[in-house]
């Protein structure tokens, strides 16, 4: 059953298109990776799906959430969807979290708003969620401020916050880009575990093909505001149809391939 569907999505600023004719759909348990470089329009696409385009930008096309078109919906209606049906996690949780509010209350906030829980129930649920995202000592950690915990822990908090209201779509916009590799690996494992448990549909946005390929089943590749490639991960990796797709796969393959004995020459490139 499709939760979120967009078609012909075009985003313009002063009549200049930044995103053109993008379309895809997300059903429960789908895992879609959206690949693109800075300026490709991938983040704008994500913002449009939450009704959060910056002032001055215009979206056209269709954005269906549970079959209802939200493209021109007033903010009042978007607010009922955001965090409840569609949630988002950003690259840098330090700026996405309120620096002056204990993390427990930030997780509890949307629960009270959308599910009408009272304060103590919401806080109890926040502690449960801290546990689910494997934060150490949840009962104590909920009282910490964002800057008092590490970057990886903040991203766990952001995930808890995004998933606490049991949304059906999770948009993750470069959620591991600001993290160290080892922490990135942990967050990716956690994300995998959480979407498996909750059945939430995932839209994973990144510039990093290997990161996305590990988690997604479907791939979308964006360039200069357009979708240039889409299909199952394996197909796109093995038989990219666009030049850009081929280039992306080839460079990802080379950059991530670790040296094997005998192939380390200091010049790279010729090891096949």
């Amino acid at each position, binding site marked *: 059953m499709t939760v979120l569907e967009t078609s012909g999505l075009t985003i313009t600023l002063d009549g200049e298109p930044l995103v053109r004719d993008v379309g895809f759909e997300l059903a429960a348990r789908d895992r879609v990776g959206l690949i693109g470089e800075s300026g490709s329009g991938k*983040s*704008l696409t994500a913002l449009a799906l939450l009704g*959060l385009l*910056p002032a001055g930008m215009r979206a056209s096309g269709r954005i269906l959430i549970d079959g209802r078109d939200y493209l021109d919906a007033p903010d009042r209606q978007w607010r009922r969807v955001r965090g409840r049906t569609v949630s988002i996690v950003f*690259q840098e949780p330090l700026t996405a979290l309120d620096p002056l509010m204990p993390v427990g209350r930030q997780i509890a906030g949307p629960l009270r708003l959308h599910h009408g829980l009272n304060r103590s129930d919401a806080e109890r649920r926040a502690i449960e969620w801290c546990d689910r995202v494997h934060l150490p000592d949840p009962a104590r950690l909920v009282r910490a401020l964002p800057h008092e915990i590490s970057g990886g822990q903040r991203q766990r908090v952001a995930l808890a916050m995004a998933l606490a209201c049991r949304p059906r779509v999770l948009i993750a*916009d470069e959620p591991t880009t600001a993290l160290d590799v080892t922490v990135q690996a942990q967050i990716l494992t956690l994300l995998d575990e959480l979407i498996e448990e909750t059945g939430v549909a995932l839209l994973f946005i990144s510039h990093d093909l290997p990161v996305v390929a590990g988690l997604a089943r479907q791939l979308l590749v964006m360039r200069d505001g357009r979708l240039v490639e889409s299909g199952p991960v394996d197909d796109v990796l093995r038989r990219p149809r666009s030049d850009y797709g081929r280039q992306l796969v080839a460079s990802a393959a080379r950059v991530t391939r670790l040296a094997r004995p005998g192939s380390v020459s200091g010049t790279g490139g010729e090891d096949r």
Partner: protein
Amino acid sequence: MTTPLIEASETVDAIAAPTRPRRGWRSPSLIVGSVLLLVVLALALVSLVWTPYGLDQADPAARLAGPSAQHWAGTDRLGRDQFTQLMLGARTAVWIGVSSVAVAFALGTPLGLLAAAAGRLVDDAVAGVIDIVIAFPTLLLAMLLVTVYGASTTVAISAIGIGVSAEVARLARISASRVFTQDYVLAARTCGTSTPVILIRHVLPNIWHTLLVQATLAFGVAVIAEASLSYLGLGTPPPAPSWGRMLQEAQSTVGVAPWNVLLPGLAVAVAVVGVNLLGDGLREIGDPQLRTRRRATGR
């Protein structure tokens, strides 16, 4: 989600450039500011070659006369032409404004740059001195200097210049420190570039816009300070005309000749507002981010 959602850095990068207003040279504050300032400058310049009457030329028959065809701005209690005084006052204001800003920058810029370029000890020391001078009211400083050296244009310029120089030094220090944290300064070091050359080649070109805006604001401060000093009898000594002294002389007759107070006050306001608007306009133009982003994203 209740968090601010437009924070993802890439998104901001992609969006920030096109949505900011880029009015550049057509910005209203720049135009209005320039016009106001040009009026003051024109009065000052014309006064060098022509004034309606002589400075001390009194017309006893027309004391405290209102504005008329003979006396555009009326006359004072001795019957002297007020427009003549306004024009000559503009000359004084511009002269003192420009000179004290020059003094302020000659003192403040090197001091600020030195603090930014030198080590922590020097920086802390300079920052301390700057804070003290900023905390010390310019007017009080001027009064002190006048008590010691007597009232003169030079003393007024020095007092205002020193007072304003602290602000200039502070700003130069802050903006230069920011440039010093940039990798291109580190890169220059690793290229063997000496600190004085780094200051000239890398730091100054990246902060002069900010300093220029500060100069316009400092000019406004100087004009007000000059008027205040003269009003208190501590600035330009008679017979040299000054808006401040015009105000002071006119205050006893404000009941009969309100325009004698209004017009010099208005002159001060025009000069100060004009220069501040000009500063705002320059700030919009000078911001290198605003200018380069467009071209950078155009590629």
